[in-house]
C-alpha cells in the first residue's frame, strides 16, 4: 500500500530543464488510441444500406451526439463541433473503461490527461467565441455586470479548467484507489468485480458524458 500516490517517471534533463515523462500513461494512451482505431475500422468495414450490428452501434452513437450538439449550439454549428464532441467522448470513455482490463490503467487517472483535454476545450471555446462574436463583444463580456468584476470573471473562467479536469481526474482516480484498497482489505475475494463494474463502467461512462457535455456547453455559451 505504500506506493499509493507514486508514479513511474522518466526524467530527462535537457539544457538545465527537466522533461518528465509518465511512461505508463503514455503507453496506456496509445492503447486507447489503438482501440479507437480498431473500433472505427470494425464499424465502417463493409458498411452498406443494410447495416451490420457494429454499423448500427456506430450510427446510433454518431446520430445521438449530433442531436445533442444541435440542441446546444444550434443548427449552423453542428457540422463544425459534433466531430470534436464525438471524439472527446469516445477517447474519455475508452480511457475510463481501460482500468477494468487486468494490468492496464486508466490514462485519465493521471492529472495530465484530463488537464490537457480541459485546456483544449477551454481554448477551443474561447477561440470559437472570438470568431463568432468578434473580439470587442467577446472582451466586453468580462466587464459584466459591473466593470470592477473583471478580475473575478477572468478567475472564474480559469477555474472552469480546474473544475472540469479535476472532476474527471478525482472520480477516476478515486475509483481506482477505492478498488485498490478494498481489494487489498478483502484479499481479492468476491467484491472487486462489482466495484470494477460500478466505478469502471458506470461511473466511467457518466463522467465521460459529463466531461463531454461541459465542453459542449462551454463552447455553446461562447458562440451564442
Amino acid at each position, binding site marked *: *500500500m*505504500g*506506493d*499509493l*500516490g507514486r508514479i513511474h517517471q522518466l526524467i530527462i534533463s535537457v539544457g538545465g530543464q527537466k522533461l518528465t515523462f509518465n511512461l505508463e500513461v503514455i503507453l496506456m494512451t496509445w492503447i486507447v488510441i489503438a482501440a479507437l482505431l480498431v473500433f472505427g475500422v470494425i464499424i465502417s468495414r463493409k458498411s452498406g444500406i443494410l447495416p451490420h450490428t457494429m454499423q448500427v452501434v456506430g450510427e446510433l452513437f454518431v446520430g445521438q451526439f449530433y442531436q*445533442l450538439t444541435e*440542441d*446546444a449550439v*444550434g443548427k449552423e454549428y453542428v457540422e463544425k463541433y459534433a466531430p470534436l464532441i464525438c471524439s472527446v467522448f469516445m477517447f474519455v470513455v475508452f480511457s475510463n473503461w481501460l482500468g477494468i482490463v487486468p494490468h492496464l490503467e486508466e490514462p485519465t487517472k493521471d492529472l495530465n490527461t484530463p488537464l490537457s483535454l480541459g485546456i483544449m476545450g477551454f481554448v477551443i471555446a474561447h477561440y470559437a467565441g472570438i470568431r463568432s462574436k468578434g473580439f470587442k463583444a467577446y472582451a466586453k463580456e468580462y466587464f*459584466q*455586470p*459591473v466593470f470592477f*468584476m473583471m478580475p*473575478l470573471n477572468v*478567475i*472564474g473562467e480559469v*477555474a472552469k479548467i*480546474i*473544475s472540469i479536469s*479535476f*472532476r474527471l481526474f*478525482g*472520480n477516476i*482516480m*478515486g*475509483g481506482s*484507489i*477505492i478498488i485498490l*484498497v478494498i481489494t487489498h482489505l478483502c484479499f481479492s475475494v468476491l467484491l472487486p468485480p462489482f466495484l470494477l463494474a460500478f466505478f469502471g463502467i*458506470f*461511473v466511467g461512462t*457518466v463522467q465521460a*458524458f*459529463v466531461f463531454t*457535455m*461541459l465542453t459542449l*456547453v462551454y463552447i*455553446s*455559451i461562447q458562440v*451564442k
Partner: protein
Amino acid sequence: MMEFDAQAWVGAAAVVGAGIAIGFGAIGAAIGEGYTAALANLAVSRNPKISGDIFKNMLVGQAVAESSSIFALVVAILLLFMDMGNATMLKAAALLGAGLCMGFGAIGSGIGSGFPAAQACLGLSRQPAASARLTTNMLIGSAVCQTPAIFSLVVAFILLFMDFSAEPFNPTWAALIGAGLSTGLAAIGSGYGGGMAAGSSCEGVARQPETIGNVTTIMLVGQAVAQTPAIFGLLVSFILIFKVFPETAQIQTAMALLSAGLCTGFGGIGPGLGNGMAAEGAVRWVARNLPSAADLMRIMLVGQAVSQSTAIYALVVSLVLIFVV
C-alpha cells in the same frame, strides 16, 4: 522550544484528518441522495407507468451526487495509507488542514447535487418525452455544483503532496490549517447554492422542454456567480499556502493567518447560499416567462452582486489579516 517527536505527531494528524475528512464528507451526499430518492417516490406515485425510467434516472443522479463523498473518501484513504517519509511537524498541520478542507468542502456540494437529480426524477413523471434533455441538464447541473468540492480536493491534494520542510514552523502551521478551513468552509454555501439553481433548471426544463437552451445558460451563469465565494476561499488558501512567512515567535501572527482562513471560509457560506437563491428564482421564472429572460438575468446578476458584498468584506478583512497584521 519543547522537544517534539515529529513522526508521532504526523501520524496522529493523519488519523485525525482522515476521520474528519470522511466523517464530515459523508453528511452532504447522503442528504442529497435521500432527497433524490424521496422525490423519485413522489414521481413514481404520480406516473407509475414509467417507474423503470424514474428508477434509472434516480440511480444515475445519485451516482453523480456521490462524487463529493468519493473525493472525501479518497483523501481519507490517502491520509491513512500514504507513506509520509521523513516528515516534519509542519506536515502534521498540513495533513490536518487537508482533512478539514475536504470534510467541510464535501458537505454543500453533496446536498446541492441532490437537488437537480430529485427535480429531474419529478420532471420525468410530468414530461416523460423530455427524458433525454432532462437527464443531460441534470448531469450538467449536478456536475457544475460540485465545483466547490473539487476546489477543496485541489487544496487538500496540495496540502497532502507539497513539501513544507523548508519553511519555519511558527506562523506557517496556522497558515496551512487556515488554508484548509478557508476553501472547505466557503465551499459549503457555494455548493448548496449551485445545487438550488440546478434543481430549478431541471424543474423548468420539465415544464417547458423547448426552453432548455436559455434555462441551461442562465443556470450556468447563476452557478458561476454563486461559486465566487468558493473562489475567494480558494484564493485565500493559495495565498496562505504559497506565501513564505518569516519566522516569528509571536502567537498573534499565527492566529491572524488562521483567522484569515476562518474569516473567508465562514464569510463565504451566506453569500454562496444567497446567490444560489437568486439564481434559483431567475432560472425558475425564465422557463415560465421566456420573453423576459434578459430582464430576469440582469436582475439576478445585480441581486447576486449585492448579496456577494458581504463575502467581499470577509475577503478584504482576510487580506488585511494576512498582509498587514
